[in-house]
């Protein structure tokens, strides 16, 4: 532990973001990019000072302002070099060509549909200095392509994203237009189910969104310490079916990190193991308050924001069943292919999800596409009713950002196919 209790911290960030997109049929790509540098200094109290585009004099000035002596906080140690001062420019020209090609192919395969293709990439280099410790650093980068198509006048919408941790996007994009066209065709005729409780099966990767919301947010240690976590009261009691193990590993997924924004190495944490709460996500402050080791989950959206314990890549561990077993025997239910969180209350475990792509399950088989709807899940009941966890663990098929206290972070999620005993489905008017 650092001499001042690990409180004071110097954080330097260089970041570049870029977006290339085609928003509509026949439109030329739009391109924008931004880059910034910033420095933040946290003192031994809960006071943090920051400065955008800092010059060397700002370092000493901010250290003094935050009540940190100048020299000792600068870090030392030969065992780790600081990262390169500025990353190469993101490959925007290549992305423009990629986006244009994907848009043209999608238009050809889905004539008359409204097409959207969007490439998003970021590269962030951080350097962290703490008193008495070697300088720490990390390079985070990622890229994502989303291809979407919709038909005006009805609800038929299909999309397929692919993500990679290389900004050059070496992921398999070529298949996306065909995937979207096929799904758009399957969604030409949409059905609904009566609003009410239904059995729900989450396809590969999608269930990661569910556990991110109802498990992960409740086990961010600051939520537990501040009385905002429904799982914190559980202690070691069984809260879920023994089939369920939930892990957060920031080193995996589409936006990984090896070192967090306080210089701690990231490590995987089993949040729920065989149905029992076994771990929390910590930053330096919460680990100190709880008497636990840091877990490397202290993150900030930028140098302007305070550090909080945040999820990296939250996933359900693979089970042993065949995916078909999750659907077997369901008389009438929902098979979710794509969804996003709409509202979560970590204090009660209640969460609302917008399901944007799903099939109806009828007598144990998939039976046509369902219209968009809401799924309302009560955490306590939901975790106990999860079962038939399959072996087909997959990641990041419906990627998104996690927004907390106004801080947006790219996160990963993963899950195998599994069944949820009951959730309230609400279809639109």
């Amino acid at each position: 532990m650092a001499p001042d209790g690990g409180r004071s911290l110097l954080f330097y960030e260089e970041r570049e973001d870029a977006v290339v997109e085609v928003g509509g049929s026949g439109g030329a790509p739009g391109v924008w990019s931004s880059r910034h540098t910033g420095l933040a200094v946290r003192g031994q109290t809960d006071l943090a000072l920051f400065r955008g585009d800092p010059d060397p004099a700002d370092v000493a000035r901010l250290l003094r302002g935050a009540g940190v002596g100048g020299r000792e906080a600068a870090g030392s140690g030969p065992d780790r070099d600081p990262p390169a001062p500025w990353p190469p420019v993101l490959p925007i020209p290549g992305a423009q060509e990629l986006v244009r090609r994907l848009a043209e192919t999608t238009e050809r395969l889905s004539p008359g549909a409204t097409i959207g293709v969007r490439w998003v990439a970021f590269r962030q280099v951080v350097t962290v200095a703490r008193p008495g410790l070697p300088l720490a650093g990390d390079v985070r980068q990622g890229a994502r392509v989303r291809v979407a198509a919709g038909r005006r006048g009805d609800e038929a919408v299909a999309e397929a994203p692919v993500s990679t941790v290389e900004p050059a996007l070496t992921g398999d994009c070529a298949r996306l237009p065909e995937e979207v066209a096929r799904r758009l065709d399957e969604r030409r005729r949409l059905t609904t189910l009566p609003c009410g409780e239904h059995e729900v099966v989450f396809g590969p990767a999608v269930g990661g969104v569910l556990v991110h919301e109802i498990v992960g947010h409740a086990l961010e240690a600051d939520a537990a310490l501040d009385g905002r976590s429904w799982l914190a009261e559980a202690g070691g009691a069984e809260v879920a079916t023994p089939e369920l193990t939930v892990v957060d590993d920031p080193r995996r997924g589409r936006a990984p990190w090896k070192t967090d924004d306080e210089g701690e190495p990231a490590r995987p944490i089993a949040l729920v193991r065989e149905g029992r709460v076994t771990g929390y996500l910590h930053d330096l402050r919460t680990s100190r308050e709880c008497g636990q080791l840091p877990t490397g989950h202290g993150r900030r959206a930028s140098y302007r924001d305070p550090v909080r314990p945040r999820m990296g890549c939250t996933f359900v561990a693979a089970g042993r069943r065949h995916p078909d077993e999750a659907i077997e025997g369901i008389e009438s239910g929902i098979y979710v292919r794509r969804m996003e969180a709409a509202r979560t209350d970590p204090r009660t475990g209640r969460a609302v999800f917008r399901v944007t792509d799903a099939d109806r399950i009828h007598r144990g088989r998939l039976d046509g596409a369902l219209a968009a709807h809401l799924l309302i899940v009560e955490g306590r009941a939901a975790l106990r009713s999860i079962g038939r966890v399959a072996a087909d663990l997959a990641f990041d098929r419906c990627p998104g950002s996690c927004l907390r206290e106004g801080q947006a972070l790219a996160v990963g999620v993963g899950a195998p196919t599994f069944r949820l005993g009951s959730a309230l489905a609400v279809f639109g008017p």
Partner: protein
Amino acid sequence: MASDLEALERLYGFVHATAGAEIELYQRSADTIRVFRSSRGRIEVTTGTECGVAVRARSRSGGGIGFAAGSSASRQALDEALAEAVARCETGPAGDPWPPSTDRLQLDHDDGDLPGNEEVVAWLSRAWDRLAAHAAGDERVIPVAAWIDVASTVESWAAEALQASRRRIRASARVELVRSGGRGEGALDPIVVARRSWRDLADDAWTAVLADRWLAPAGGVAPAAREVTVLCNPECAAALVLAAVRARRPATDGERDGAAVGPGWHVVDDPPAPGALFGGEFDDVGFRTRRRVLADGRLWTGAAESKGHYRRTSFRDPPAPLPSSLVVLAPAQAPPPSCLLVTGLTIHAIGPGWVLEVDSAELTGGHPGAALPRTMLRTSPQEIAKRCVGSVGPARPSHLGVVAPALLFEGIRTGLQ
């Protein structure tokens, strides 16, 4: 901070001569204070300064737009951003707006100075204590986390025949709450208040919003599936109006101006109005703002998608047309003998429709009854506009930038079927 307009004009003159494209420069610097308080009384202060410059370039051949931004107004950073923007404008989207030919604007209003850290911390403590004292019978609210943000920004624009600058302060405060006793424990929607200046943020701003929401604690029975008359309090009406205006895309939805609305749906985007939270003399691109009637109680008549209505969240983001300062001018009505009073609202957009999760109570003879279990209303943006018949009581400003009274809607479906 002083305005950097003159420096920006000089830079503009240099890069304009060398760019090979028409360019617009935008420079922004901001001093911010954020104070956080946890349920255990921990206070965290984050404060600092950032600045940045953005360049948009349009090819002289009338082609596309390129946009690039950097966290420095130095010549080197500007040159880099300019080179990137110009390189990209060959493939940018057409039809992007551009400043008018001649319009030199002066310094916009000045909202005073930033408060000190201690002053902001003291505000948070007083407002927290006021809220924590709020109770009805054995039912109480418990603040669990709160944030207050105060920012002073200086923005400058330079483009062909357009130079503008403004300085302003915005303050907003958010608190998360839970309820205990009475109906048992449950989360309440966070309360957010925002003002144009620090001095306008009163200590009782949160409790005033809470008073509008507060319902008798005894539990009622959820209404059966049927069509009901709904009265949304001003906070909920503001959220509905903003969401409905934003959901409307006349150009792509095939819906033309002239679609019918209800007699209460009279909506104006009025950024030049004195006191408009996000308004001012000009928008975030530098266009002079103007009042625009979006709906007149009979028809949709326009959209906030043209010059004078552009907004950007920082120098990093390209500007986009958004309604910034909606005012609802619905004709006043007497409250109906009975209706559903909505005091809390979450809008879920699913497909073309909306499902509204609401906190509500039966309103009979002007008196709200017991709070009902969380109820679902099923509607759509188009239907909300058509079914708005009038307003009840005075208009109030909300943190969303919308000034709205309580709004009355007829024929809204409740329940799940």
